[in-house]
């Protein structure tokens, strides 16, 4: 590839995908992309992970679904989505007009549902990879129940793997005792990459109303508050796995993203920050580039820091 400038090369190869930079929008914080395309130049992004999709539409959880906490936000959306068919018909054609990788986040209540979703997506043009959500804390069936158990996580991974030739990224839950055990299980089951972390299970009480702030009582915590936990888990996973790790959790500034890349993440996802400031991910990309220039780094592969043996 001919290069006219000597600026840093931000592109990354992720499980067979060539991303123009390591910055993705996280599922659940950017809708189906098209909703925010007037406020964020999607063409600038390494990719976009769309809102979690199920086989059939889901109405989501009763409100209140959102409550702010210190440096964070608790949500219990409950995977409200229009379903894979409506996504492919109504949203994807618009999304395909952008020069970025579209990653479909999928959710099923059973292993068979995950497999069926994978087979459907495999036949849809315009989707570059699948992120498998086995970690949503806000639904009763499926979700975190798969993510908390190595055998169940591996079973879902195998089913998706068998259903598609697309890269399979498994999104892991932090609500486990040993993240490495789960990560190792999904790697062995055929995952091409893992992304972590999904939200941390949390709770808030409205003292004026004397009831849980969320109707669903528990919700998933995201935002800057969870960054240290996420970074620790990414460091652990990246130190153990052979497949690439995508870092997620409270990334708001370029420095946050660089920390995750230094911890061994090949790419990162910007989540709650997009809700606060839609163009946050764009600022993260330019900040990574500035950092690499200032430190004379040519490639993001030079970012990971040494580990004490």
């Amino acid at each position, binding site marked *: 590839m001919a290069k006219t400038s000597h600026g840093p090369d931000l592109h990354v190869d992720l499980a067979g995908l060539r991303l123009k930079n390591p910055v993705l929008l996280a599922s*659940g*914080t*950017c*809708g189906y992309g098209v*909703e*925010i395309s*007037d*406020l964020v130049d999607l063409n600038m992004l390494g990719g976009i992970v769309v*809102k979690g999709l199920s086989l059939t539409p889901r*109405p*989501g*959880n*009763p*409100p*209140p*679904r*959102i*409550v*702010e906490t*210190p*440096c*964070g*936000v608790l*949500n219990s*959306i409950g995977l*409200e989505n229009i379903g894979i068919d409506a996504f492919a018909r109504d949203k994807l054609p618009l999304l395909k007009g952008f020069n970025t990788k579209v990653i479909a986040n999928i959710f099923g209540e059973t292993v068979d549902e995950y497999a069926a979703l994978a087979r459907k997506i495999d036949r849809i043009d315009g989707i570059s990879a699948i992120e498998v959500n086995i970690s949503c804390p806000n639904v009763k069936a499926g979700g975190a129940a798969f993510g908390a158990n190595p055998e169940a996580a591996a079973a879902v991974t195998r089913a998706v793997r068998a259903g598609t030739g697309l890269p399979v990224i498994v999104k892991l839950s932090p609500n486990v005792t040993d993240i490495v055990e789960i990560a190792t299980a999904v790697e062995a089951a055929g995952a091409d990459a893992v992304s972590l972390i999904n939200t941390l299970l949390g709770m808030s009480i409205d003292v004026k109303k004397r009831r849980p702030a969320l*109707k669903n009582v528990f919700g998933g915590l995201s*935002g*800057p508050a969870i960054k240290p936990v996420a970074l620790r888990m990414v460091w652990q996973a990246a130190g153990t796995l052979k497949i690439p790790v995508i870092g997620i959790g409270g990334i*708001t*500034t370029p420095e946050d993203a660089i920390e995750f890349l230094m911890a061994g993440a090949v790419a990162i996802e910007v989540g*709650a*920050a*997009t*809700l*606060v*400031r*839609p*163009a*946050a991910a764009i600022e993260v990309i330019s900040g990574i580039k500035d950092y690499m220039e200032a430190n004379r780094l040519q490639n993001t592969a030079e970012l990971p820091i040494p580990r004490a043996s």
Partner: protein
Amino acid sequence: MSRFDVDARILRNEGLARNIFRLTLSAPEIAKNARPGQFCMISVDGKSRFDPLLRRPLSIFDARKDGEIEFLYSIVGRGTDILSQKKEGDLMGILGPLGKGFGMGQCEHPILVGGGIGAAPLHFLAKRLKTAFSVVIGAKTRDELPGISAFKSLTTRLLIATEDESIGCKGVVTAPLEEELVALTKSDAAGYLIIYTCGPWPMMRAVHHICVKYGVRCRVSLEARMACGIGACLGCAVKKADGGYLHVCKDGPVVDSAEIDWEAEV
């Protein structure tokens, strides 16, 4: 739909009554594109992006050709408390204008029904209405009606109710609203009536039931806990009458009252 995410300078941030403030920002693109009933997401602590994390949805009180945009807010928690301490010259992140507004028909006689601080978006609407209209405003006490003088210059049909009778008649908005409806249904305005309302949920529910009783269309401006304001997170769900949820930020904030399940818990 044109939306802008800008850093806007505070021109004024004045206390109007106990716990009630008027914030004036210079944001020409947003002011120019704003329509009555729309809202903006405002960072309460300037450009800080950590704590408080989320921007606050505030409905537009006024937007003028000179590029100034105004919001009324009351201190309800830590976020609005921090906002109230911001000074002239401070920069605020502001995203807007957002959502669907009231929409205005060509030949209507609107009745604007506001409760407390909920009167704010109705003020912007009143300023833009080109037809005759009535205003019915209620609050616990006079101090919760800081925008009242602004309405006086915009309409001659202004009815006020306060629970402590500090101004207007004693009670809530429903009694004067029914009086006005009865009077207007005997006038030339009959058949052209529409109600635009914003206020606490129980008040809007009562207004909705009155509208059903009189066969008058009712448009309500909803409020919900919100994270993004742009339909990305789906946090601001409100239960629909026919099942499922609508989202205040993109389906509203103004919707037909018949769309809402008014018995749902909020």
